[in-house]
């Protein structure tokens, strides 16, 4: 680790101070067209790669509101990547729950891109009910032996490690017997298979774990304390999704650049008919004057707009430090938008919506989007789960009776633990 220039910017630095610091550092270090490993290393060690991280851990200890300023300056200079903090789900979680040794070993490689992570949470039998996962980790001296199946893992084929949650105690209620690991993927016990999806792609994988091993030094948090670590990691994930979803269903490219990578992958609607414009499509197919079409398009436009405004309002609320119900409703609202969008565009295309592939690329894109809409209404918590969350956490309505809440997991009725899709 080299000495870091600019570590003198105080935590409560003003916008203009930060802007000046970044500009100066970039003027000195960034060369247009650069971006190789050397640059990356210099960037990480400067603390500007993740300015909100602590000074002692590759950051500059900036207040989170200032991150955007850093990102803006990097964009202005054409330098990237920058202000990765938010997207560094893995590093952030390790910073929150790891030992100093773990921070030393994992965070810098992650910031440098030498290590990449994927999420080994969901299982065939644990989707909405994540705490019901049945992958087991059994201790064998200083290592753990892992057996089970994970699924819906995006990025698994590019990743070096995975955030693994596994069951380590079957005799306590479901939330209390889980442990969290940073599992190396390059080992014989890990078999990654892409899932052939209806959209035609294979972004998701299933991961079969057969006597896979992970050192106890790769355990994050306490044994059987994995649920708490998972909540932290999920919180960082929501932050990324929230930053990416923003509000509009249209492709949104915040100044920081690169921030939407994960969200793009998880919410393919953002690629919906190439950002095509349904107003233009309506004109093209000669339905601009059709009153039914006009009502439909006005409704869709309205849903998009109010969701965008909700996003702005949520940020304004957050800026004032006020708690806001708005942060919780975006995903459900987006689900309605994308399904409505599919319906509107299908109606616009009419008979030609039955076509696909090269025969009719516009229809093909709408059809693909029609499946992608279900990724929004199912993935990352179904619409039904979202309504529970809104009802309980925002409106304060009472929870349902939970039949498995206090029962040792061994005795709980469980779903089938494995199922091969690939």
């Amino acid at each position: 680790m080299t000495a870091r220039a600019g570590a003198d910017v105080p935590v409560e630095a003003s916008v203009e101070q930060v802007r000046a610091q970044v500009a100066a550092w970039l003027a000195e270090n960034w060369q247009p067209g650069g971006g190789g490993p050397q640059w990356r290393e210099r960037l990480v060690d400067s603390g500007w790669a993740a300015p909100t991280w602590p000074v002692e851990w590759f950051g500059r200890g900036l207040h989170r509101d200032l991150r955007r300023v850093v990102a803006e300056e990097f964009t202005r200079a054409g330098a990237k990547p920058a202000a990765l903090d938010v997207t560094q789900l893995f590093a952030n979680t390790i910073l929150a729950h790891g030992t100093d040794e773990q921070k030393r070993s994992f965070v810098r490689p992650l910031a440098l891109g030498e290590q990449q992570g994927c999420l080994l949470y969901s299982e065939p039998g644990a989707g909405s009910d994540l705490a019901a996962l049945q992958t087991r980790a059994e201790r064998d001296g200083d290592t753990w032996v892992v057996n089970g199946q994970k699924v819906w893992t995006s990025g698994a084929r590019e990743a070096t490690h995975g955030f693994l949650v596994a069951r380590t105690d079957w005799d306590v209620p479901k939330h209390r017997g889980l442990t969290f690991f940073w599992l190396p993927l390059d080992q014989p016990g890990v078999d990654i298979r892409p899932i052939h999806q209806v959209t035609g792609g294979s972004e998701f994988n299933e991961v079969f774990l057969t006597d896979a091993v992970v050192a106890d030094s790769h355990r994050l948090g306490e044994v059987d304390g994995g649920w708490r670590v998972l909540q932290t990691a999920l919180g960082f994930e929501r932050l990324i999704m929230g930053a990416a979803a923003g509000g509009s269903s249209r492709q949104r490219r915040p100044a920081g650049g690169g921030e939407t990578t994960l969200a793009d992958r998880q919410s393919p609607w953002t690629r919906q008919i190439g950002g095509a414009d349904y107003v233009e499509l309506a004109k093209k197919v000669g339905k601009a004057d059709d009153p039914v079409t006009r009502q439909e398009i006005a409704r869709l436009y309205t849903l998009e707009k109010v969701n965008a405004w909700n996003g702005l309002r949520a940020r304004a609320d957050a800026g004032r430090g006020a708690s806001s119900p708005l942060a919780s409703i975006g995903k459900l609202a987006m689900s309605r938008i994308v399904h409505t969008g599919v319906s509107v565009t299908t109606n616009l295309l009419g008979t030609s919506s039955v076509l696909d592939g090269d025969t009719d690329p516009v229809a093909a894109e709408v059809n693909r989007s029609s499946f992608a809409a279900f990724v929004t209404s199912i993935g990352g918590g179904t619409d039904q789960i979202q309504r529970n969350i809104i009802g309980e956490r925002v409106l304060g309505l009472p929870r349902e009776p939970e039949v498995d809440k206090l029962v040792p997991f061994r005795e709980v009725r469980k779903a089938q633990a494995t199922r091969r899709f690939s």
Partner: protein
Amino acid sequence: MLTTGQYLGSTGRLEATVGTFEFTDDHEALRSTVRAFVEETFPEAQVRRLMAAPSALERPVWERMARELGLQGLVVPEEHGGAGAGPVELAIVLEEFGRRLVPVPFLSTALATIALTGGDRAVTAGYLEAVAEGRVVATVALAEDDGGWDAAGVHCAAVSDDGDGGAGDRGGWRLTGTKSFVPDGMDADLLVVAARTPAGVGLFAVDGAADGVSRSELEVFDLTRRLARVRLDGVAATPLSAPADTAAFDRFLDAARVAVAAEQAGGADFTLAMAVGYAKERVQFGRAIGSFQAIKHLCADALVDVESARSAAYYGAWAIAQDSPEVATVAPLAKAFCSDTFFATAQTNMQVHGGISFTYEHPAHLYYRRAKSGAQLWGSPRANRDLLATRIGL
């Protein structure tokens, strides 16, 4: 920061956003003050008493609203005795009034005030002062018997007394025609009337006591908003601005749409709170009904709509405040969406309450009535959506 932010609008182009949602401490203080006033002055029992009375207007209360709270003068310029506030502040007040179905002619007067502030001050200064002081109740008379809410629906004829009747004519005018669905039309001292000249549609001030004005109360479904039919028979009138300025009329309509939307958002918000409150308290099958997904999810969906409605109304208010070109799309959007949301929420509230919602004693039906009627007044959701479609390029 947000006021200079940018987002990618639905047309795929980068649009500057208007500054929005930056509520200040003053805004919060205004909201608290109005909420406390409304809760104290218009509890449900009082609303029901005024519903049953020959008129919902009680002049002492009206004067106190003006004197102590300055509500009628809120958007009146300071030089005419008002607070000089804008559409955002008005939206906050209307939202609070909407929450409690306050039956006094505040919305009517506010709409008239919007029209007056948009007019020629040489003409409107006196009216604005009288409004701000609580001396007069005002309203706007837009639609006629056929129930159209835009310029095309205006048939009432404005004839110049002595001028040429052209766009620049500021002489005396006389109005003849029948306006209907006039909110608080029986109580209004001042009527702002939409009328047609040979050159276009404009707004005219008419003294409610003038010769040739005759009014009759309409029987209406909404028990907390009274409507009248007003016959004008060669009544003396003063144009608020150039008498055929249809563009000014359209601007006024957009401002009115947003004001009404704010009131509806308030009604929707309170109605949802009522449903949620009942769902927490009402026990069936040994547990609160709000613990059942059927009820919980109804409420969750309603929350998405209600918060969206509030966002739409606020965004509209800020767009007007900043004279943004977005007003043209936000205004019909907000009116349509807030109308639909309030009505849907009022229905959800009825359904969640079960049997007691169809007792006259329970307030659920009062919100349902307000929502069902308000959706049609100032243009139906469908008409507003069609206008939105036009304005986004269809």
